């Protein structure tokens, strides 16, 4: 019990620390790209008319990133919920909704956490996720398909899994990741268009580089600058890939831990194993959940049949561990 408490505490600390680093890294990343752009513009010939003394791009990008980081911190969970078109369940009407409210309140007791807000995602595919920066502001969302398909014990197991993410502060980190992956993907798409589809920009940049490379001012500019430029371009292009991989790597280990904690809350690993199998058997993707929020879900919202078919190699690129492996670990805990 003490080990468990200590383990939970370590997890929470690690997630808080990672969240802070993520926010810092995000701001630095944009500063790097912004000031890199300033350097690139400075390297251009004077006749292109884009040289400037004050690094405005860098300053604006950094300020923008700081603003985005703040809003991701403050409103990230709202954005995630909004993006899935989830609706808050305030007054339960149907028996299924009443059951969901009861189950959530039961698990809040088991986990010793405040009751989170409950949201329903209008989607036929069974899936669930939790979000929110703190347990006190947490939200648990389930799809309509989940409510229709699972029995009470299975629903309880899924809700317990989500509570585990909340208790471990996984939701804080994952929500930030989701918000930022979305922003970075958007930005780099825009940058890519700017670089490769604008004739004027590419032309000017190419000319500038050629002149510096063979020109007389090479020594003055220093050999480090082209290197900086190349590094900046590479990081810019790699950004979407890196951010995507990051969000995957972050979530995989977490799912095992959350499964284990859920089993501790319900003392019923078998129900979670059954629920996971039931979720796996449905092959329609969860359309309501976009790429950014995918890592938050209990099972991969993309086509799960595909994930199974990919096998070990697919595992490397999946945001979630294979259900088979998760069920196997739950069985070791005593699920039959």
């Amino acid at each position, binding site marked *: 019990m003490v080990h468990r408490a200590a383990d939970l505490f370590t997890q929470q600390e690690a997630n808080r620390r990672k969240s802070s680093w993520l926010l810092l890294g995000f701001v630095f990343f944009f500063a790097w790209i912004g000031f890199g752009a300033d350097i690139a513009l400075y390297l251009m010939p004077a006749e292109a008319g884009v040289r400037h003394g004050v690094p405005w791009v860098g300053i604006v990008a950094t300020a923008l990133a700081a603003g985005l980081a703040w809003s991701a911190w403050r409103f990230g969970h709202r954005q995630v919920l909004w993006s899935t078109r989830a609706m808050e369940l305030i007054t339960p009407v149907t028996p299924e909704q009443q059951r969901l409210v009861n189950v959530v309140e039961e698990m809040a007791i088991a986990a010793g956490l405040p009751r989170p807000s409950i949201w329903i995602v209008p989607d036929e595919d069974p899936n669930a996720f939790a979000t929110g920066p703190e347990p006190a502001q947490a939200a648990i969302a389930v799809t309509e398909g989940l409510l229709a398909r699972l029995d009470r014990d299975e629903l*309880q197991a899924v809700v317990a899994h989500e509570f585990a993410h909340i208790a471990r502060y996984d939701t804080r980190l994952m929500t930030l990741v989701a918000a930022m992956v979305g922003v970075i993907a958007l930005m780099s798409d825009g940058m890519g268009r700017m670089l490769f589809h604008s004739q004027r920009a590419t032309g000017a940049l190419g000319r500038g580089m050629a002149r510096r490379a063979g020109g007389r001012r090479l020594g003055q500019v220093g050999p480090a600058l082209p290197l900086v430029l190349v590094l900046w371009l590479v990081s810019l292009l790699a950004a979407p890939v890196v951010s995507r991989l990051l969000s995957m790597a972050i979530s995989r280990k977490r799912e095992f831990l959350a499964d284990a904690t859920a089993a501790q809350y319900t003392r019923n690993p078998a129900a979670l194993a059954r629920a996971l199998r039931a979720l796996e058997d449905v092959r329609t993707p969860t359309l309501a959940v976009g790429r950014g929020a995918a890592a938050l879900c209990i099972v991969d919202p993309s086509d799960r049949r595909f994930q199974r078919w990919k096998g070990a190699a697919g595992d490397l690129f999946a945001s979630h561990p294979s259900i088979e492996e998760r069920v196997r670990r739950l069985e070791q805990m005593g699920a039959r």
Partner: protein
Amino acid sequence: MGPLITLGLLVAAVLWIITAYNRLIMLKNQVVNAWKQIDVQLKRRHDLIPNLVETVRGAISFERETLEAVVQARTRAVAATGVKDVARAEGELTQALGRLFAVAEAYPELKSLANVGQLQEELASTENRIAFSRQHYNDVATSYNVAQAQFPTNLVAGLAKATPAELWEIEDPGERDVPKVDLSLG
């Protein structure tokens, strides 16, 4: 150099005492809170029972004994104080309810009652809440008990007025599982 080292050690010792003391106090508060949670859930069950009895009375009036047992067990449970007493009285109430549900299985008329399904969900939920709050209380109390017995935190236990918290023992082995409340009657 000597006095400085002594001072440093002293400061470290004081800091450690403060941390250990605060940890024990935090755990103690968690135990108190967890106990209150159980109380809240037990009250919920106590409030629900008259409703249940009223609902099923008409349909199974001739099972007077079973109903009476539930009502009496409830009265005793409401009056009980102290961890041991409450645990025993609530255990009896759980058993009495279990017998009532078993009896109710035999009466298909109950199926026609509109709010039986609703009541069944409420009761299932209440039983779960009690079980989970009990489980949470035992978890927190165990953490607290282990912390105050472990070296070196036990040196501060007296200072924090820490005494072992009583666990909610479950006497009836059949009750260890969360009771399955099923009024669906087939």
